[in-house]
């Protein structure tokens, strides 16, 4: 399950959403929603992984690059079969949404740290970086597999767990000072 090893870094991406906490209408309800949605998400993923293992077996599943994709390939209904295109469609659409959210939060953070009044002038220039990065990130699937197996976790946890945690601890100390 080489690809699944990178899961931790996927999960910790949720930290990005804390960027939007100040914009919420009722921020006091946010922690519960975060907890509830992660639990639900975990259950959903657990179910799908259970399904895959039940269908393909643990050995086979662990060798697969995208087990969910292979899983959808095996679907056969009377009018439609091999609905993996469906799955990819949903993946692309949701990934699009994810890119939007992360991109927006990144720009917001950038504007914060530069003390800008408005984030909008940053949208276009930073999108250029985004395009270049997206094209040069992984050369091929082997590269992706390698990255996911060995680097995704330390890389992801540095930025998604380490730095936020550091900031949190700093904030705790600063509050004590006050």
């Amino acid at each position, binding site marked *: 399950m080489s690809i699944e090893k990178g899961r931790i870094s996927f999960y910790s991406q949720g930290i990005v959403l804390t960027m939007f906490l100040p914009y919420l209408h009722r921020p006091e309800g946010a922690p519960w929603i975060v907890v509830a949605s992660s639990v639900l998400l975990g259950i959903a993923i657990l179910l799908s992984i259970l399904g895959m293992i039940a269908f393909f077996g643990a050995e086979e599943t662990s060798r697969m690059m995208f087990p969910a994709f292979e899983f959808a390939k095996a679907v056969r209904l009377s009018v439609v079969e091999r*609905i993996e295109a469906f799955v990819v469609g949903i993946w692309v659409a949701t990934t699009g949404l994810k890119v939007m959210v992360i991109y927006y939060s990144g720009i917001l953070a950038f504007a914060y740290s530069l003390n800008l009044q408005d984030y909008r002038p940053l949208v276009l220039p930073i999108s250029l970086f985004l395009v270049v990065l997206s094209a040069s990130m992984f050369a091929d699937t082997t590269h992706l597999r390698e990255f996911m197996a060995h680097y995704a976790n330390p890389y992801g946890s540095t930025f998604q767990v380490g730095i936020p945690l550091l900031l949190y601890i700093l904030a705790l100390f600063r509050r004590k000072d006050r």
Partner: protein
Amino acid sequence: MFRKPCKPSKLSDLKERKLRKRMEKVQPQTAVLEEPFSADIETNVRKFQRIFGNTGDLSRRDFLLEGEQGVEVVLFYIDGLVDKGAISEVVLKPFLFHNLDEEEKRLLPGNAYQLIKTSLITSAEVKEAEKFSELVDLVLVGHVAVFVEGSEKVLAVDVKGWKDRGVEEPESEAFIRGPREGFTETLRTNTALIRRRIKTPNLEFNTITVGEYTKTDVCVVYIRGLTNPDIVREVESRIRRIKTDGILESGYLEDFIEDDYKTPFVLVDRTERPDKVAAGLLEGKVAILVDGTPFALIVPVVFGEILQSAEDYYEGNDYIRPIRWIALLVALFLPSFYVALTTFHQEMIPPGLALSMAAGREGVPVPAAVEAFMMEITFDFLREAGIRMPRPVGQAIGILGAVVIGQAAVAAGVVSPIMVIVVSLTAICSFLIPNYSASVAIRFLRYIMLLLGGVLGLVGVFWGMMMLLLHLASLRSFGIPYLYPVAPMVSRELRDIFVRTPWWTMDERPRLLRTSDQRRQAPGQRPRPPQSGRRRKSGEDQDEY
């Protein structure tokens, strides 16, 4: 003597000056409108006539009121806007046949105006004008002007009466069950139709006049003490902001007061049915009636409401709502889905079906996306032609269309049979959407989806879906989120979105409308079988409320 040298004027300047001079001659004299009346009847009448120019439908009637030296009276009215029978009944008859007693005769020369106002005119509605502009406005809406010698005021008597279509069944929203009355072109009739349904003094019709030339009466309708005053104020301020030549239909108004114009969706609901307006008012919405059109506007509107028909509440077919939602999805996505499947994801179609589809498409000279586009356009042509044609011809177009797209096109091998099924299914589904403007919006979006599906396959379709959702979530109608109550989720109000639950479950008005009185009815009115062994006291239920 030399003339002082001056800069020669440019030709364009000369032309402009000439034009302005000519325009001045034909400009209406607005200054005289603000003048008060003088005591001299001749001057008043002359000025009044000059305001109207030489229009043919301004009628004049002069007569003398008996007395020691006869008081001159002049009547003016617009022919066609007034009921002539009413004029002779309430104005002429009393003037000509009333026998003045000695006391009145003695008073007459000095107090003719007062006498006429208090004891001669037998109309219920008499107004006084002190300026020409006031009088002109009244005469133009069907009053008769009564100029009296020696008075600085002019009477305007309401004798409105014109050809009215009468209350008929609304054609654009026909029901199996439900009231058959529809609005007409006359504002007064329409307000009465609403008033007859909501019999409370709190129902208010706030009239605003819009349009420099048309002077259209626009009525903002709401229930005082129920509707959120902020919404009423917002609606009124948006209408007051309008400065334009004319409002001929509520569609003009719609464009001016919408929150966002860069969207195909309707942000203002419109209806021909007084019962629908009444239902909206009782929910805490604001209705806008426009004189001269049977279409009333209702604001604010949310997305779920475009799939609601007033008949849902009359006829208990609760399962129709989910069917409409399915129809919405089919109307929006079926062609693009089909195109994506046949162009990019053939592996998703089972072999047997794929083979028969391929056989059907064998002779088709164009890609599936183009084929679908062609058929959709043809359908839209036919539909539009069917609407614009006179009715008997419209039916012929329908038959022609059925033969052309259904039969001949397939036989000629221009389109595949499955495409005909797809397009006709889509067309039928788009007719299931009760709101006409919304179904037009869905039809328009279908082309975009088709393009995405034809270029990017299912990925494109899902992308379009995503974008559509984002767009819908960003819309507001008078401050109410368009996807409410789904997107700011209010679970108790979902009872009226995907299904319609019985009336006794919907105890509260939509929460986001922030009505002053949230409760619609007493809770717990679910009908139950009578309990055995215990007789209910008659007053019990009311105590609960």
